[in-house]
């Protein structure tokens, strides 16, 4: 039986911090490739998406296992997903674009997938801001409605991935299929 002990939660945080430590290690070791900016941006985006998908897997896991304690990990996963997608955006602006305003404006307006990625991140922003227990209490029923924004955000993230792919559609296709399944599993009659 799974218990949401503080030990397990601490382990989860270390686990989710690990991809960042690994990235920092690779940068310091000079093992980040010929085009570090591209590698870092892609790596952070991929990691963020994985955590967002893990967050979306909580409800199906709860339904399948019949164990409500899964929900206690959801906030951590959601916040870490927001953390990595924020780093992804920051790396795009700072490392990839070199904080050059001309380049940033042109990329956001010309590369539609940048635009869509930005929209996906903006949808997550209010969720991160209202992730505290106090906000949840204050917003009540509206909090639940607001946090459904994770669904359009994930859909936009998939569009973002598909749109930027040149011919390597396998990875975005896998994310799309997983998202479809995760949403489908929510239709479990046990839910209500």
């Amino acid at each position, binding site marked *: 039986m799974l218990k949401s002990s503080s030990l397990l939660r601490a382990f989860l945080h270390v686990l989710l911090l690990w991809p960042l430590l690994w990235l920092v290690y690779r*940068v310091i070791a000079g093992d*980040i*490739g*010929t*085009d*570090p*900016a*591209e590698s*870092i941006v892609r790596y952070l985006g991929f990691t963020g998406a994985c955590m967002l998908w893990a967050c979306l897997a909580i409800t199906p896991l709860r339904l399948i296992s019949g164990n409500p304690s899964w929900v206690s990990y959801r906030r951590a996963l959601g916040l870490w997903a927001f953390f990595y997608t924020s780093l992804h955006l920051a790396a795009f602006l700072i*490392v*990839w*674009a*070199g904080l*050059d305003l001309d*380049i940033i404006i*042109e*990329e956001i307006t*010309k*590369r*539609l*997938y940048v635009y869509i990625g930005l929209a996906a991140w903006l949808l997550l922003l209010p969720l991160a801001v209202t992730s505290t227990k106090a906000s949840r209490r204050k917003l009540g029923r509206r909090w639940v409605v607001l946090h459904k924004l994770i669904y359009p955000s994930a859909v936009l993230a998939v569009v973002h991935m598909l*749109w*930027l792919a*040149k*011919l*390597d*559609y396998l990875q975005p296709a896998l994310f799309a299929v997983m998202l479809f399944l995760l949403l489908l599993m929510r239709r479990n009659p046990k839910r209500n």
Partner: protein
Amino acid sequence: MLIKASDKTTPKSYELTSESDYWSRRAWLKAAGYFGAGLAAAVSLPVVGAPASPETWQAMLKQKLADSVAWAGSSRDKPTPYEDIIQYNNFYEFGTGKDDPARLSKSFKVDPWRVQVAGEVAKPGNFTLEDILKPHALEDRIYRFRCVEAWSMVVPWVGFPLADLLRRFEPTSSAKYVRFETLVDPDRFPAQRFGRSTISWPYVEGLRMDEAMHPLTLMVVGVYGKTLLPQNGAPLRLMVPWKYGFKSIKSIVKIEFTSTAPKTTWQQLASSEYGFYANVNPEVDHPRWSQKRERRLPNSLWDPNWVPTQKFNGYEEQVAALYDKMNLRTHF
């Protein structure tokens, strides 16, 4: 199409390397251990996947690489380090990842290798690499290399003008285009294995006859004075420096002279994004991104090294006349 030997192909004085730069470049190359006949022999050039006994074309190529001469029109831009040139590649026969080609080509066999010549030509045939190489002296040419994905490198290629090779087969008057094919061999190219790819192999590229005969169009057999590695298109690849990288087909096994424009691989995959001409042009954006600038590799964490893209990749003086009457927006 008439082939004009135009003065525009002669490098301008400012493009010529000054003597001091020439020698310092040589000294630098030598210091890096990439140059000099004796050095090349001592270092023993890595011929990847070669059998224990060296084939004759490889011995011939070694000698020719040692005898290669610096070309006066080389780019003055600082060349991208060898390690980056051999580790960062687009070569979808190996995989779509930039590191797939270097990783998956370690056992790639370049022997035996034959090139079929066919089509509108007086002397078609099936040629060994020795046949292909024999009469040609090699030149070291530093070219700017611009990928359609908006990154770029500066590469010291070693090769000989494609025109010199094509003339030997005596193309007929109905030869208007040249069509090239890359090897199909799932044993050597993992991405060609069943179910691995959406591309219908072989990879096909093509040039108009006057583009193919242009003095800048280079048949490449080496990089940095060394034998070309598989990830860079060994043993024989094209380099058309004023066009996006995908035009410069790798690992050529077939050269066909045709009367109509060949349908190229990237046109088949996405004709709205990748045209037949694919001339580097900052004024015409890719449908999904700007082509105004490029990230010159290698770059660093602190500097993405953006540089403005030049029309025809900076070779406008030499090649603009080829497209005098064309609208480069429709013929992109």
